[in-house]
């Protein structure tokens, strides 16, 4: 017995020694020489990049694995409150995270499901709203909790999001946080009814998003004007619905006359969705947004009372004029990272906008470009990382979406923005089915190296390369463009000389999502015999075909042509039939090859 006891003691001593040796070894590890604040910094990145959703609510967050590595790591993780500021809404974790975050500012995200346990947790966590930096409430029937939000001030609250997914929650009779949110910067209200004079719209706001409000809660023009005038620091404004309705009898003069515009010098993102273009014009004409980078305007109807077939009914023309006026002020790239630059944009993209009629236009500096497998959206199958982005997205139903108005906005955007150095262009818009548009928009962009064209725009490109559209007859859009340029953009050359060549420096052309059978002779034949050379593509060396349909006989003809090119035939065929891209080196296979 005594011997066993002695052995136990010996084992304990050995274990103790082993532990001491391990700790000594750890103290010599390089990571142990890193200061604790850096270690906490590493943990915060690890936490941010780890999945925040555990497999089950009882499981700990995945980042807590670091607390099991060694004593020092655990000590650091437990002693830095900033690592515990995301409050976990679970009975096992709520009190732990509230305690471990000590007095640090916390982020509360609440999904309201309605079960009794959750309700109690919500009440508990809302008791700590006094040190909340971020509060996001999302769910069904939030009304019972509104009173909990009115008990104490929220002196540190920077972000408040309330999303009601059932009946609108009324905030009208309540003064949220006793009207004291001195640091509130981001406010998002969805499915809420509220007073437009509420102190929650405080002057510190930089982000405001309101959507899904009841018709009765739509502000009057003066209410909206008062709100915007009280928010001089706004950077991001999204109003999806709360746009004052204007009478059908309103004229452009009556809409735009009364006040000098409200200057919003910091606004970078503006999204307005209203009932009619006329209503949007009512808002747009009241604001000045010289540094806007993203402009998204959409409406449900044309707002034209005549119902006539004219492609540019008055309200639509007003809207186009209004955009022209704004584009004049948005004529230089605005860097999001605060670096001032006079450089132009390097890439532009034209694509369908919204879900109905309309278009989107993006200009920026494309830093990265690589292909993904998103074959449903060919243009988006290129992953692009944009710097200095300017994004214009317009979407209207009815007359306002007419070809004439869209075309004019395209032209004004291209004439106003510094696009002289553009080297990459993406076109996925039916507006470019017309060859004239290619000459007008791209005629002066002489440095384009990469071009991606999708769908019917390919027809327009091929026609333009045959020389069509270069000297087109004057159209309604030309007249409107000239009128607007005279009025708003006198510095723009209305009728510049049409260039001789289109894309003279283009080296890489990608054609996507077209029926190659229909265009086979035009495209491949044109490239083969270099008949395009007369009008452009003088330096083309690579052709990529993606997601194109092609018949067997065309494949045979291509095979004959490619037999000299060294292109792997099987790979080429599978690429055409499937969705993979196929590259053709023109300098190898197409020079003068007849088929």
């Amino acid at each position, binding site marked *: 017995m005594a011997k066993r006891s002695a052995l136990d003691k010996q084992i304990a001593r050995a274990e103790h020694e082993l*532990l001491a040796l*391990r*700790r000594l*070894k*750890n103290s010599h*590890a*390089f*990571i*142990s*020489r*890193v*200061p604790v*604040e*850096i270690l906490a*910094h*590493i*943990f*915060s*990145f*690890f936490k*941010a*990049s*780890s999945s925040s959703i555990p497999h089950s609510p009882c499981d*700990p*967050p995945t980042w*807590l*694995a*670091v*607390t*099991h*590595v*060694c*004593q020092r*790591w*655990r000590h650091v*993780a*437990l002693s830095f409150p*900033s690592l515990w500021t995301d409050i976990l809404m679970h009975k*096992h*974790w709520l009190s*732990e995270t509230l305690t471990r975050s000590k007095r640090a500012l916390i982020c509360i995200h609440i999904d309201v499901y309605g079960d009794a346990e959750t309700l109690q947790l919500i009440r508990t966590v809302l008791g700590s709203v006094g040190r909340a930096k971020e509060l996001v409430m999302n769910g069904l029937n939030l009304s019972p909790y509104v009173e909990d939000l009115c008990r104490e001030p929220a002196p540190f609250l920077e972000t408040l999001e309330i999303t009601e997914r059932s009946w609108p929650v009324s905030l009208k009779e309540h003064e949220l946080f006793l009207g004291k949110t001195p640091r509130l910067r981001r406010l998002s209200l969805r499915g809420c009814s509220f007073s437009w004079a509420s102190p929650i719209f405080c002057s510190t706001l930089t982000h405001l998003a309101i959507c899904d409000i009841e018709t009765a809660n739509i502000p009057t023009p003066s209410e909206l004007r008062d709100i915007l005038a009280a928010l001089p620091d706004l950077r991001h404004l999204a109003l999806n619905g709360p746009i004052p309705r204007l009478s059908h009898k309103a004229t452009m003069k009556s809409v735009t006359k009364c006040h000098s515009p409200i200057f919003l010098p910091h606004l970078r993102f503006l999204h307005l969705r209203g009932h009619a273009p006329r209503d949007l014009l009512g808002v747009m004409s009241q604001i000045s947004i010289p540094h806007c980078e993203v402009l998204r305007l959409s409406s449900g109807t044309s707002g034209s009372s005549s119902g006539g077939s004219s492609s540019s009914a008055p309200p639509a023309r007003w809207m186009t004029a209004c955009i022209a006026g704004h584009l004049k002020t948005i004529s230089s790239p605005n860097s999001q*990272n*605060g*670096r001032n630059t006079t450089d132009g944009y390097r890439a532009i993209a034209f694509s369908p906008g919204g879900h109905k009629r309309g278009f989107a236009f993006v200009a920026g500096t494309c*830093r*990265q470009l690589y292909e993904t497998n998103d074959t449903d959206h060919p243009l988006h199958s290129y992953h692009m990382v944009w710097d200095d982005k300017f994004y214009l997205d317009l979407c209207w139903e009815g007359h306002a979406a007419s070809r004439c108005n869209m075309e004019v906005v395209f032209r004004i955007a291209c004439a106003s923005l510094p696009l002289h150095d553009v080297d990459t262009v993406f076109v996925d818009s039916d507006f470019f089915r017309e060859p004239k548009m290619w000459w007008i928009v791209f005629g002066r962009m002489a440095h384009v190296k990469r071009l991606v064209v999708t769908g019917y725009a390919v027809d327009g490109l091929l026609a333009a390369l045959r020389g069509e559209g270069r000297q087109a007859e004057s159209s309604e859009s030309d007249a409107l463009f000239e009128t607007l340029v005279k009025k708003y953009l006198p510095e723009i050359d209305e009728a510049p000389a049409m260039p001789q060549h289109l894309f003279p420096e283009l080296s890489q052309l990608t054609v996507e999502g077209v029926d190659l059978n229909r265009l086979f002779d035009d495209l491949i034949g044109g490239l083969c015999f270099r008949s395009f050379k007369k009008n452009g593509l003088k330096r083309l060396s690579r052709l990529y075909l993606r997601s194109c349909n092609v018949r067997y006989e065309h494949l045979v003809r291509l095979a004959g042509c490619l037999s000299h090119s060294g292109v792997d035939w099987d790979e080429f065929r599978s690429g055409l039939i499937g969705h993979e891209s196929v590259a053709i080196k023109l300098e190898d296979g197409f020079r003068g090859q007849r088929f």
Partner: protein
Amino acid sequence: MPTIVSVDDSTVPGEGSSRLLLLVSSDNKHIVVEEDIMSRSRFISKQVEGFEATSQRHAILLPFSSFVLNKVIEYCSHYRGYYLLEDDPDAAPPGRSPVREWDQEFLDVDRNMLLRIIKAAHYLEIKSLVGSCARAIADMIRGKTTEEMREILGVENDFTPEEEHSPSSKCTG
């Protein structure tokens, strides 16, 4: 605190428009660098302010090797004149944004070198570089088990059996 030694103007020709600084590494290598390049370092900026107060120019002795110092200078040179959000005192806490592409290549070094750079960046108070290194280390251990993390960073399990199962560890996963 860094050791500061006086230098004469012939060593540091900094009277022109682009003033030069003399940095001395722990292996006693003298590296002359434009002040503008190192302005991203709050530590260096504070030192330079001190020089201006005393109207005397000095070499700045730094407690890390020339190899590490050169890496830091390379980083600062690359981002010379750039605004980096992380260096802004009012910047938001670290988010999910990935390591910048150039930083990724720049930090493609062995583990110990990475830790040396982060220590140097911390010493020099270059928040953006500390952030990029911390991200890179966090990426190294992401998705790994506790055992794998220990192996990667060369640490041992030094918990006592009691600590492994103590109530305080219950909620740490």
